[in-house]
């Protein structure tokens, strides 16, 4: 039964992508405008950019920045979120800061970072981290507040050490919140990182998109975006989904 259903789902997925491509193709044919190239042209552009090594280079640079800023933001955000979730006084004190940082527009932090620290790599990473951290903190704080007191008491009465409590009692409870922060984080960061690159870097996807914009090169623009979407989707399927399944297997 389930295999039949999964086959049907696969057929549906393929059909929906095919329909999207067909609509796009027809639209491109009827409009016949240089600003909407058809799927075949975009695919050819993609192939050429990949062979020349240009696309892999810029995509790789952007992914490196993404991983770096994502790692820093998650580590710091988790640590601060756990502290705020467990300490009511600190939480009440820093709550206002959080609200302010949550509501500063991304563009403002990016410009300020470049103005204060110059057009350098660290400023670019810092701008992304500052944009992401408040979201991580808020999500993890929610998780830390909801920690099961019964289980903590159990661990305490059986004299678990600090490391053991974290590994066996706290971390498994935070895991869903960390996964939520990871998902929303990747989506948020890769949007911000393009703007960061567009404004102050001389490589990466954002920089390339800026050039394509000036040249009105829509085919390259679309080819680069699809490559990026494909990479993010690969992360989801190859990395996040299996992690999710592993952590969910004890649930009823």
């Amino acid at each position, binding site marked *: 039964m389930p295999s039949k259903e999964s086959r049907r789902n696969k057929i549906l997925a393929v059909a929906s992508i095919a329909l999207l491509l067909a609509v796009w193709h027809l639209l491109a044919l009827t409009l016949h405008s240089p600003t909407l190239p058809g799927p075949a042209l975009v695919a050819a552009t993609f192939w050429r950019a990949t062979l020349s090594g240009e696309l892999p280079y810029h995509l790789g640079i952007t992914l490196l920045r993404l991983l770096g800023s994502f790692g820093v933001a998650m580590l710091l955000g988790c640590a601060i979120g756990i502290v705020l979730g467990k300490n009511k006084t600190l939480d009440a004190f820093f709550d206002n800061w959080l609200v302010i940082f949550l509501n500063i527009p991304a563009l403002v932090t990016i410009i300020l970072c470049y103005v204060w620290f110059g057009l350098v790599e660290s400023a670019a990473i810092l701008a992304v981290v500052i944009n992401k951290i408040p979201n991580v903190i808020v999500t993890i704080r929610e998780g830390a507040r909801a920690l099961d007191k*019964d*289980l903590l*008491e*159990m661990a*305490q*009465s*059986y*004299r*678990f050490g600090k490391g*053991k409590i974290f590994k*066996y*009692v706290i971390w*498994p409870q935070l895991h869903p919140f960390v996964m939520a922060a990871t998902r929303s984080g990747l989506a948020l960061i890769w949007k911000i990182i393009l703007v960061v690159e567009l404004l102050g870097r001389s490589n990466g996807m954002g920089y390339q998109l800026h050039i394509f914009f000036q040249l009105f090169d829509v085919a390259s623009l679309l080819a680069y975006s699809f490559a990026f979407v494909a990479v993010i989707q690969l992360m989801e399927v190859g990395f996040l989904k299996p992690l999710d399944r592993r*952590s969910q*297997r*004890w*649930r*009823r």
Partner: protein
Amino acid sequence: MSDIRIRIDNKTFALPNAADQRHHAIAELELVVHPHQFVCLVGPSGCGKTTLLNMIAGLDRHYDGRIDMGTAGKNPSIGYVFQNPRLLPWLSVRQNIEVVFQQAPPAALIDSLLDSMQLLDAQHQYPERLSLGMQRRVAIIRAFAIDPDILLMDEPFVSLDAPTARQVRSLLYSLWLKRPHTVLFVTHDLREAIALADRLIFLSPSPMRVISDIEVPIARDRRHDEAFTESFRQQLLQNHPEIGGLL
């Protein structure tokens, strides 16, 4: 290990909805428990029995008084069977037992405990897939396995159906006979208390204090005989009218 001496002068709680009012939970409670004694604490619900166990386990240190565990200089190891099983849902039954050991867990002992509680087949299952009765048995094994100095049990059979409760109770008792520890067992079921305990401590409604302290002279091999324990219960209620109002 020598006697456990408990002396609580005063224990109050802040009421959650009125910060200036305090609930007076325990007043002038004094209790000495001898090593390897099975003591049942009997009292009405909400009288502060769980609070007392938490204080002994070191989970609650906000009280006036002293609890002397009789293990000079070192923390006694404590096995605690809570009212709810409190298993870690992300660990299998066996991992839940193994995780409480500081050193390498003794595989043979865990096997034999799982076997005697009829859980060998379920040992690699996750707790949420088991019935409540099975989860309670896992919690009991977890507490027994570490061979604690003191075993605290807080109504471990409440909300089990009668046949399951009887079965787990007799399993518990035979385990304890093989490996006796000092046991403090909280219950409000007098029949259960008589079937298990060397000694019954009757506690008043809050502020909780000791009302009477009665030895149970029934031989260990007669405990499963319900007619026998029932006649002891009748006699007890007749001779000590003050405890009738508690139950």
